[in-house]
């Protein structure tokens, strides 16, 4: 039988960048287990992260002007095959995730050695890389079902990572179990939603889904699919009434993992929400607009206040930060609910700015854990003098958390207020500012404990080693840097927002 063979043009390594972005960290994970060496685990993980960062930067530079890169897995054409599709929005997220990983890993080396039993280190770094590549995969893929698969890869490894905090505190096990139950329910809702969309359209490719939903218009099946996806992703991103897994998970996870997850996991979930609300569905879909404005927005506003309010009354620094994260997610959702380009820009830029702020703060928490075993306010009092560098970084990133001018946090809140005013919703703008005052209260409590209270007489705490201080300060300086040089982040975020709204090049 004579078969017709189509001529094949060889792909270069440059064409493979989208695949290598995921493949390098993903391949490194089993490699670590296969090598089984405790000494090699960290270097392999770090090398994989650095390569990922370089690739994500190259991809971001290619798409920042509104371009799109696609990659067909296995050579199968979409919509049948799985497609990786990179535009400004996900290149930005990929860059954030890999940058955070490169900063957090050097910190993790010392912190993990202290907080996780030595015999678990190889498996710990393998799980870390799986989580990392899962999060990157969620961001890069253009296939709705593939999002679910990568979401599961990252979630399952996250449960393991959180549970590995059990060496320090046994409650990490129940925290991980809680998250497992909630995360699984979330993933189930998500995949049911995708099932509905598949039923209504017969396709799983996001671009194709958008096309078909656009032409056939909304119906009950599509609406139900949207609702299920919204709830599923809502659970993953700790959207206000579904946030209860988060405080325990972040409090009892090893500090390096709290830093990594706080800066990336919920951010990637926000990205998924963005992708589904703006690419797969569109604001032309009336049901979506109503849901966002009458269901999501009130809860986002509530999150800003309620979670901040709870954060004020915490007695544990780490737990306080966890509650503050829930409040900050409120800002991002509010930005999305505005449904304008400015609102979206605010959400995307806050995703980045809050990521680096929380990374700095959670790493500082890790430094206190190393020296004081715990981060309750009466354990860390007076540390401003005993650990001056760590505490100074806490002050800087704390200011960024509040949104003081000159810091990264200010930029995103400014754009958010602008977005609200553009729509003439000045009460919302007022609420954004008012809730920031609550942030002043909870950040001030920490600063007061660190600087104005005397250290405990039995405290032997000293400054942490350079390997921890440098990552903390890189993140803290980034908070200032992106507060002053707003050009890079805002350009990328604007381009991403324009791409999502389909107004690029107009």
């Amino acid at each position: 039988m004579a078969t017709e063979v189509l001529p094949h043009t060889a792909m270069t390594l440059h064409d493979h960048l989208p695949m290598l972005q995921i493949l390098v960290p993903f391949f490194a994970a089993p490699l670590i287990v296969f090598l089984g060496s405790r000494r090699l685990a960290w270097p392999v993980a770090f090398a994989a992260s650095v390569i990922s960062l370089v690739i994500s930067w190259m991809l971001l530079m290619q798409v920042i002007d509104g371009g799109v890169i696609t990659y067909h897995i296995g050579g199968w054409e979409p919509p049948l095959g799985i497609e990786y599709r990179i535009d400004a929005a996900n290149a930005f997220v990929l860059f954030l995730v890999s940058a955070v990983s490169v900063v957090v890993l050097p910190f993790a080396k010392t912190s993990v050695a202290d907080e996780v039993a030595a015999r678990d280190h190889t498996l710990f770094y393998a799980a870390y890389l799986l989580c990392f590549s899962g999060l990157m995969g969620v961001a890069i893929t253009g296939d709705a079902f593939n999002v679910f698969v990568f979401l599961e890869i990252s979630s399952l490894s996250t449960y393991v990572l959180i549970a590995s905090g059990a060496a320090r505190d046994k409650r990490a096990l129940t925290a991980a179990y809680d998250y497992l139950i909630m995360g699984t329910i979330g993933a189930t809702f998500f995949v049911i939603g995708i099932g509905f969309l598949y039923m209504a359209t017969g396709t799983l490719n996001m671009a194709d889904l958008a096309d078909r939903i656009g032409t056939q218009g909304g119906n009950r099946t599509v609406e139900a699919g949207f609702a299920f996806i919204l709830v599923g992703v809502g659970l993953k991103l700790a959207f206000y009434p579904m946030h209860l897994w988060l405080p325990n998970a972040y409090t009892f996870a090893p500090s390096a993992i709290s830093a990594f997850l706080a800066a990336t996991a919920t951010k990637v979930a926000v990205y998924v929400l963005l992708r589904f609300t703006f690419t797969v569905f569109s604001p032309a879909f009336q049901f979506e607009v109503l849901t966002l404005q009458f269901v999501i927005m009130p809860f986002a506003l509530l999150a800003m206040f309620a979670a901040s309010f709870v954060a004020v009354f915490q007695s544990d620094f780490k737990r306080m930060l966890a509650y503050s994260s829930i409040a900050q997610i409120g800002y991002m959702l509010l930005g999305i609910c505005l449904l304008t380009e400015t609102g979206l820009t605010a959400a995307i830029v806050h995703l980045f700015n809050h990521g680096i702020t929380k990374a700095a703060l959670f790493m500082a928490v890790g430094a206190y854990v190393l020296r004081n075993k715990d981060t309750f306010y009466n354990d860390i009092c007076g540390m401003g003098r005993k650990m001056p560098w760590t505490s100074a970084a806490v002050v800087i990133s704390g200011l960024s958390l509040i949104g003081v001018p000159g810091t990264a946090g200010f930029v995103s809140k400014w754009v958010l207020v602008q977005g609200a005013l553009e729509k003439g919703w000045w009460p919302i703008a007022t609420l954004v500012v008012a809730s920031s005052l609550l942030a002043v209260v909870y950040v001030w409590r920490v600063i007061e404990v660190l600087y104005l209270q005397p250290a405990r007489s039995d405290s032997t705490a000293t400054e942490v080693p350079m390997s921890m201080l440098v990552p903390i300060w890189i993140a803290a300086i980034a908070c200032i840097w992106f507060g002053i040089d707003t050009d890079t982040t805002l350009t990328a975020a604007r381009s991403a927002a324009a791409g999502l709204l389909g107004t690029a090049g107009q």
Partner: protein
Amino acid sequence: MIRHHLILRVVTKLLIGPIMLFALYVQFHGDYSPGGGFQAGVIMAVAFIIYGVVFGLATVQQVLPPWLVHKLLALGVIIYAGTGFASLFLGYAYLDYGAFSPAHPEHGQHWGILAVELGVGITVTGVMVAVYYAFAARTPMLSDEDW
């Protein structure tokens, strides 16, 4: 060690061989008929698990020590991803099996699916055995005599 359950032990010894053979059959005919890596992996793991159930955890861990199970878990994934790497370095898309036989893409598909399924089978065997080890190695809160 008390040697009891004579019939069970004899039947198990007789069965383990055919079980493994059947696992390999399911593994390598997976691309033509029902079966494949997942099913074959589970069947292969059953051979080890039944040996452990009847002859004790210590005995089965002499045959398949836990450190080897860890390596198997990773090895399967490495084979799978490695197949993709191979096609990638041959100038084709990731996991484009056509790369393995450019003149006859269907043959390439066969080779590719065979390699990938082998990886799946090894990992699934490893996972099933690892899960069994994890549960069986737990020390009971009450010893048998205390009941």
